[in-house]
């Protein structure tokens, strides 16, 4: 189980943060990430509109509306958490990785604690807070360690 990438998209579809969570993650340039971020944002909006009916009970407690929650492929799982304020946190991981949901929620908390409380951070703008990136790395390490211990 390996977490690959994290990217964060603001409510107008701009990429505000992306980082590799493991050395195994494919090397992709920032320009490509910008494109992926805004494409995902659009697909999410389309999925939302295309959904034939609204889910009666939002399954996602801290998420907002219907949209893309998870994409599964042979080599990858992508999971998205859209907050009620419209920010999307997206994590990709190797198939079989558990607790992606929990990681997303923890990252949301880290974002509110590290980025939003930084007086020099402007809303909707790229996140360049060292505190945030180191906390995310620490979180991922703990999650991977506890998963390894759990398997043994």
């Amino acid at each position, binding site marked *: 189980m390996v977490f690959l990438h994290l990217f964060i998209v603001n409510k107008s579809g701009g990429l505000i943060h992306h980082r590799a969570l493991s050395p195994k993650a494919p090397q992709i340039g920032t320009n490509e990430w910008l494109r992926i971020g805004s494409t995902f944002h659009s697909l999410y*909006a389309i999925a939302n509109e295309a959904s034939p009916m609204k889910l009666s009970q939002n399954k996602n*407690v801290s998420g907002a509306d219907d949209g893309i929650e998870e994409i599964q492929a042979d080599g990858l799982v992508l999971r998205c958490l859209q907050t*009620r304020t419209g*920010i999307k946190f997206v994590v990709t991981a190797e198939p079989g990785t558990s607790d992606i949901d929990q990681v997303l929620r923890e990252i949301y908390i880290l974002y509110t604690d590290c980025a939003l409380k930084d007086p020099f951070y402007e809303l909707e703008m790229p996140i360049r807070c060292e505190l945030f990136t180191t906390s995310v790395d620490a979180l991922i390490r703990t999650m991977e360690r506890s998963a390894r211990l759990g398997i043994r």
Partner: protein
Amino acid sequence: MSKATSNGQQLWNKVPKANAELFALTYGALVTEVVRDADENLATVNEKLEKIGYSIGIRCVDEFLAKSNSPYCKTLAETAEVLGKTAFRMFLGIVVDVVQHSPSSFSLNFQDNPLSLFVELPENYKELEYSILYCGVIRGALEMLNYKVDCQFVKSPLKGDDTHEIKVDVKQVMSDGAGEDYQEE
């Protein structure tokens, strides 16, 4: 005890606390600084403090959502409950009564105000809305959740009332998604 209340109590137990006196004195220092900056023009002071609150609100709403895991609100009444019982409790540790006036307006009533612990308004400062920061916070937070609201203090012990009352009127509920220009005919 309702769900919102117990949730608020739990969150309050969890969050790190600041010293109440330090908090009140810091806010007092901020207010007097703003008063000095605005050359004692109290209307400007109120406006500035409200704006500071707004900037806090648009940020702290995310902290609340991330940490509270409170369920989706389907009506304004539910939103008001969560705002008063859970959010105010989590951030300020105070007990708030929520009163619904109509489907689009409600009031928050409370006794203790951590901001005005040591405050007595002098005679010539009666126009100052000392705790208007709260109104800004509420306006900012609800705006991030697509509610455009008007928010004001209608009662304040600093002005001789027996309790605090903040009245919130929803002006508009904005919709997500494409703007009207992009809608199909």
